[in-house]
């Protein structure tokens, strides 16, 4: 193993890791937004919204994320959507993970005991007051771990924007392989950095989960 080479390329990889982190954070935020809207739609009283939510989830979970990235980046200009690769990658991945988060959030909400909402409604609280003050605070706790699983998946999924030339970890590894012919070292470095990010985020999720535990 060529350790000297690894040290020489390290600064470039650290920069790429920073891009991966930015991608991950933005994707997660967009995903949470889509997930919250998707869950609201799936749980709506109105059939139209439930239908829209169901279609969203099944289309976006039913096709490869890579295809979704390609459709937006390569196909977008054909229908007048011109985005740079970073924006296209973030949006495609965010909307993709949002479909998974929709199901996570919905699942957490429906697994709060029905008696909780009944007790709140019986006191005179409206549907929305009940959701906000009684159901969501309990569901939020239930969704931390499964959302952590979604976030873990999306961090690894950011590798899917390498083919559209976002200079993140996987792309950087491929680029250096082209000039050094050392795929083992380059992918190893990328892998270690992915792991470091995932490890840190995993700790954050554990910390949140412990803090949110109901007394």
């Amino acid at each position: 193993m060529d350790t000297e080479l690894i040290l020489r390329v390290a600064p470039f990889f650290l920069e790429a890791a920073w891009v991966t982190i930015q991608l991950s954070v933005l994707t997660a935020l967009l995903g949470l937004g889509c997930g919250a809207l998707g869950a609201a739609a799936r749980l709506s009283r109105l059939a139209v919204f439930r239908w829209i939510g169901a279609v969203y989830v099944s289309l976006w979970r039913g096709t490869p994320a890579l295809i979704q990235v390609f459709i937006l980046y390569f196909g977008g200009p054909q229908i007048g959507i011109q985005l740079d690769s970073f924006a296209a990658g973030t949006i495609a991945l965010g909307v993709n993970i949002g479909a998974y988060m929709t199901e996570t959030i919905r699942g957490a909400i429906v697994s709060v005991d029905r008696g909780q909402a009944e007790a709140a409604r019986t006191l005179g609280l409206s549907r929305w007051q009940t959701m906000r003050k009684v159901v969501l605070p309990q569901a939020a706790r239930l969704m931390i771990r499964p959302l952590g699983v979604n976030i873990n998946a999306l961090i690894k999924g950011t590798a899917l924007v390498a083919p559209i030339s976002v200079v993140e970890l996987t792309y950087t590894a491929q680029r250096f392989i082209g000039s050094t012919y050392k795929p083992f070292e380059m992918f190893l470095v990328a892998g270690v950095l992915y792991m470091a990010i995932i490890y840190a985020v995993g700790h954050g999720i554990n910390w949140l989960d412990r803090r949110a535990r109901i007394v």
Partner: protein
Amino acid sequence: MTDQAFVTIRNAAKSYGALEVLKDINLTVNRGQIVAIIGPSGSGKSTLLRAINELDPLTSGEVWLEDVQINKKLPHRQYEAHVNQVRQDIGMVFQHFNLFPHLTVRGNITLAPRMLKGLSEADADKLAEEQLAKVGLSEKIDEYPSRLSGGQKQRVAIARALAMKPKVMLFDEATSALDPELVEEVNLVMKQLAEEHMTMIIVTHEMDFAASVCDRVLFMDQGVVVEEGPPSVIFHDPKEERTRNFLRKHLSR
């Protein structure tokens, strides 16, 4: 003060598809009256109770609280507003307490009064203290429900319902989920409410309690009221064979 129709149920019927769970039920409860509903499981007694505050709306028939029809047919938005309003006057206590686990005892009691009646924090705190004193749990005000025994949880649930100053209280098997030694403390709170002339409708399996506290007992089976009358008659001299059978099983236990 009494002898005035307070809760009125007229021709109540409910079905799930072909399954009729309530059939033409009529019931009038006067102000300050305490009515027990007894019967085998699946008889429709809980469904009837839950129809009173629209948790399980009737398929047909009417439910009134004083001069307000609770189950008015209205467009969705108006219906929601109407139901939210009338429910404030109807306290309900559940078999499994349904305390909010993420809130303290104080939070459980003050949530609805603060949100719906706009009470200040200080006023809401005072209200919580009053209601807790009433159920004998003043020292638990800052505990979370998970730190309470079943009996204590149910007493807090009663305090939470009372904090809305309801006109009538519904009890849905309030002591069924409790260990036997914890039943008495909840019964005592309910007896105390009876002495204060709270109007109460109680679904229960506890015949002794029904006999000692209630003015009237309804025996339900298969979605109909088989027999009703004062406890002395229902428990000691029931007219119907089905009532006798049911009581034989329940009293000999």
